[in-house]
């Protein structure tokens, strides 16, 4: 394993201090905790709190700022943060109008965030939550924990964050978050696995000519192992599975995110995006906005995910609203 690290155990700590040093106008770190909050506080508005294991940078700390999150909690690499950390984040972010937790659908994340919410309610802080489960690679049945939350989470941060910034109530902000969740779907793939620093070796082994389709964001294997093909073919496979949801039809307007997993050059993401635009044009689906870049990564994994969000006038308004965060700026 070759990585730019000092002590493996200090990675998250040093990363958070480095982020705070880089963006003092945006974020500050709660003392002794792995929590980033807005440098200017969140008084008088509904607060959005998210987080999860580390290794998904810039998610989630990079999205703390005006128009998106109010606090982000960082767990150990790929491990949910503990309830005491989430609880402190809720307390610090609460501006008196209530707090919405944006949780990705993993057993550990859901339990730790829910316990923190219980603790905060004991102190009379109004807390509600939404659970993002946009990954179509996982079967959504009563026989599993359900779909994972992946890159679509960024759209929840953006649109619900805009609603909160505009003065929406906790119920309003939750409604927008749930509307995004109902209309957003993603699917990802890997050309190569990632290496968790503490594990020291790749999370799965792929031959030179193999790829994993349907990976999550924790280095877990995907649903299919296949031979490497062109990025157009791969994109078609991801899109087919997303289209099979029946949400995106001719005449619809969507936002597109082509998200890098951390180890894939932007050049390749743009090549993928070109094809995504062609396919959507063929289907008569209009693209209202496109995001290409590393938003929800998986350490050094090579690969990408495609996310579609179906829009109506209300969602467009919140998508277009300004945002000013370390990793997402829109004027």
């Amino acid at each position, binding site marked *: 394993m070759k990585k730019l690290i000092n002590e493996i155990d200090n990675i998250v700590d040093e990363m958070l201090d480095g982020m705070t040093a880089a963006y003092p106008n945006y974020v500050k770190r709660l003392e002794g905790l792995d929590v980033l909050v807005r440098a200017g506080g969140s008084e008088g508005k509904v607060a959005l709190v998210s987080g999860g294991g580390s290794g998904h940078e810039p998610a989630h700390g990079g999205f703390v700022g005006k128009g998106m999150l109010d606090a982000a909690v960082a767990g150990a690499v790929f491990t949910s943060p503990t309830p*005491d950390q989430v609880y402190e984040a809720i307390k610090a972010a609460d501006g008196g109008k209530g707090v919405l937790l944006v949780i990705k659908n993993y057993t550990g994340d859901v339990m730790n965030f829910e316990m923190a919410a219980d603790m905060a309610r004991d102190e009379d802080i109004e807390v509600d939550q939404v659970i993002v489960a946009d990954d179509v690679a996982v079967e959504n049945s009563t026989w599993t924990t359900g779909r994972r939350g992946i890159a679509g989470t960024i759209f929840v941060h953006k649109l619900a964050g805009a609603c909160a910034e505009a003065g929406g109530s906790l119920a309003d902000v939750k409604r927008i978050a749930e509307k995004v969740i109902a209309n957003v779907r993603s699917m990802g793939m890997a050309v190569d696995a990632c290496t968790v620093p503490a594990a020291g070796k790749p999370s799965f082994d792929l031959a030179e000519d193999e790829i994993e389709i349907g990976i999550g964001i924790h280095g877990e294997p995907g649903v299919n192992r296949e031979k490497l093909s062109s990025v157009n073919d791969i994109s078609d496979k991801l899109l087919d599975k997303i289209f099979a949801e029946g949400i995106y039809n001719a005449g619809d307007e969507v936002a597109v995110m082509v998200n890098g997993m951390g180890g894939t050059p932007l050049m390749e993401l743009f090549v993928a995006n070109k094809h995504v635009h062609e396919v959507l044009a063929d289907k008569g689906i209009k693209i209202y906005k496109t995001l290409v870049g590393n938003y929800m990564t998986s350490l050094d994994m090579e690969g990408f995910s495609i996310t579609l969000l179906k829009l109506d006038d209300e969602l467009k308004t919140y998508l277009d609203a300004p945002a000013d965060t370390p990793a997402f700026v829109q004027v």
Partner: protein
Amino acid sequence: MSTKVYDCISKIGDTIEENKDFLTDLDREIGDADHGVNMARGFHAVVEKIPKDDANIGAVLKKTGMTLLSTVGGASGPLYGTAYMEAGKVMAGKTEMTAEDFSAILKAAIAGIQKRGKAIRGEKTMLDALIPASEVFDEKIAGGSDIVTALNAACEEAEKGIEYTKTIRATKGRASYLGDRSIGHQDPGATSATLTLETIRDFLKEE
């Protein structure tokens, strides 16, 4: 002089440490390869943080639960943390534990785990070891057995519970993504729960 509850919890910590790699390997098969590592980290912190001389069993169990919650992470942290905190409520203010107390501890811990994990028996979780163990423990106590005899029977049931988890597919937690591929593997949580019961039994036997 340390209290019995301190000694028992530090024995549980020893057992977890001894089985750290075993639990992590079980988790590698069907989960994310961190169960033993996370539990061991948690119990190291517990043994450091709980008072050696506080005879209030409830307070020590509560502190154990709070510490596991803030150090283990993942899904095991909230589940074991809840179990110990619920046990702490049962034992609040008590300095001795009777067989009836232990019966109530098991039931409270199970109820807490079920509520937090939204799981039921038969989903390839620690409940598949704990619920049958609790049931047979109550039967034995009702039949006049002493606590060690009842715990012996409970541990046997928990072991059977582990075997049972090999035969079923996971429908909760990360193992559920594997679908039928989780069949054939024993559940790491059921295993650590059984190891915990066995350690308590061995501790009480020596007493």
